[in-house]
């Protein structure tokens, strides 16, 4: 019989554009979350890093959306995910479909991050996000929630389907959320260079937590796959990608955070670990998407 006889599933061919979308979606969600937490729970010395977060979150979400649109079979119909095509401008929203939910999350996150971006560019974050402006705090809370949802919904999207691996473990949403937040904090650590040492320490500590949670969730995710994992991940080249995620994206950054002296001090350690966490976040999405589809996607 033919080699691909009896498939009970067909792969959706979500390739490199979707890997990039998932990666940058997580990064931007994490960046805004970190900026919002600096705004809400940090002190005056953290304002500079918060502003950098607001400056990069909106361009990154635009970039993410671009990757998503380019991947569509009919890119000019991207708006069909937000509005009913035959009853424009009536919205379309299916809360039980993570992709529809994600379109709404993207929309809300885009609006909120745009407001913060404008404030950062025009007002140097002193209007909307001035230290004691309650409206700015509300915007930060909304943006942080949308950022968390943006980072995590991509995992839920993969789980809510019938593909092997993706559909076999509910832990993907938590895994992508922790990974997205950790890559977002890493991006902020990388780009916000002229900030107080205490801000770097806070962000590094937060990143430690996220990377640690990511490691635990990744182990549980792989263990929960059972026979499916054995067939599609263990014993296949995909396991090499997961090994890279664990070593380069998790263990080495944790070691660097633990002993910053190994990397030549706090600031250089934060740069090195941030780069590794970002690499790990990208490879994680590649590995998960590749599991049922193949490494070449």
């Amino acid at each position: 019989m033919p080699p691909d006889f009896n498939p009970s599933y067909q792969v959706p061919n979500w390739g490199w554009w979707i890997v990039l979308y998932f990666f940058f979606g997580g990064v931007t969600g994490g960046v805004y979350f970190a900026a919002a937490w600096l705004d809400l729970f940090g002190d005056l010395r953290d304002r500079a890093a918060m502003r950098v977060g607001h400056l990069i979150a909106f361009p990154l979400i635009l970039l993410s959306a671009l990757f998503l649109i380019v991947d569509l079979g009919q890119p000019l119909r991207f708006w069909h995910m937000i509005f009913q095509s035959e009853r424009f401008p009536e919205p379309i929203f299916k809360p039980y479909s993570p992709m529809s939910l994600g379109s709404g999350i993207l929309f809300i996150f885009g609006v909120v991050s745009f407001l913060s971006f404008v404030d950062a560019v025009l007002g140097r974050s002193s209007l909307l996000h001035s230290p004691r402006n309650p409206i700015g705090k509300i915007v930060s809370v909304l943006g942080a929630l949308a950022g968390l949802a943006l980072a995590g919904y991509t995992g839920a999207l993969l789980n809510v389907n019938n593909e092997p691996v993706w559909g076999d473990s509910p832990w993907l949403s938590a895994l992508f959320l922790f990974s997205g937040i950790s890559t977002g904090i890493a991006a902020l650590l990388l780009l916000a260079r002229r900030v107080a040492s205490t801000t770097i320490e806070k962000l590094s500590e937060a990143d430690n937590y996220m990377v640690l949670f990511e490691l635990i969730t990744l182990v549980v995710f792989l263990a929960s796959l059972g026979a499916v994992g054995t067939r599609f991940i263990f014993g296949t080249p995909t396991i090499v990608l997961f090994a890279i995620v664990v070593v380069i994206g998790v263990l080495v950054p944790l070691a660097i955070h633990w002993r910053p002296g190994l990397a030549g001090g706090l600031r250089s350690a934060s740069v090195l670990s941030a780069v590794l966490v970002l690499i790990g976040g990208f490879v994680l999405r590649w590995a998960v998407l590749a599991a049922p589809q193949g490494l070449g996607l």
Partner: protein
Amino acid sequence: MRSLFNLPPLVEQQQIPAQPQVGDAPVPGSPVSATGTGTPAAPVSFQRGQSVGFFTDTTLCIGCKACEVACKEWNQLPAELDAKYFRLSGNSYDNTVALSGTTYRHVKFVEQFELSNPNRVGGRWLMMSDVCKHCVQAGCLEVCPTGAITRTEFDTVYIQKDVCNGCRYCVAGCPYGVIEMDQDGVAGKCTFCYDRLQAGLTPACAQACPTASIQFGPVSELQQRADARLLQLQQAGRTQARLYGRDEAMLGGLNSFYLLEDTPSTYGLPEAPHLPSRNLPATGGLGLVAAVLAGIAGVLAMRRRRIDSVEAAEEAR
């Protein structure tokens, strides 16, 4: 080995009555009729608002692929000749291999022969004309974010190609691997010949099937026919015979259901298909827990070295 065709056929002789004309399409709500191969002596009657479906009796399939050809002809579907879709198997009598965005019907050949047994004693073919199951609870329809996938007045599942934007979530959402993208980058699958139904015609595949393996009609009527056929086979000693998707337990019932002669997995069918949304509570709940954990960890990290006053901040610099 007992021949698959020792039993009296369900249909004695294929007779194709005169075709209703497209211009004679009945008004909405009124009975419409079609030529049904399952009961060729009389046209199949069905109404708008009534569930119609296929009952595919795999014991009658001879693998002629007339259904595939008829489907391609009626729906003007191209042969799969470009590099991506060109996939003659080269190692099977089944040369079209699988359903795709431009192959809405596919006759599976389950070829059970041992290579070590060249005279083929004990081997067998199982044939099954596969198609979209038009599930009552359809995974593709559930996940489609654009509303391109809809349920018709005949209870069939239909893709509006001018609405689909090619996100491919339906491909991942279908538990049967039915949907693929066509050359225009939008999702393609069996339309249940929606245009023919509107004109009171039998779908092209059922019309073309020479053995009445594919039977068309109101689902309730097909279920009765399937029950009778199953009983007939079991009384004849074919104890492996079973119905697949006839009952509501499977995705609310499949409007295209099957009579099989072996386990579903033998035919490449999932034993227990489920809706994608089955995973939503668990993955959503875990995501929520993760968000709370991330929030708490973030607060802990931010608060530890917090300095509230401007003066203290200046001092710290």
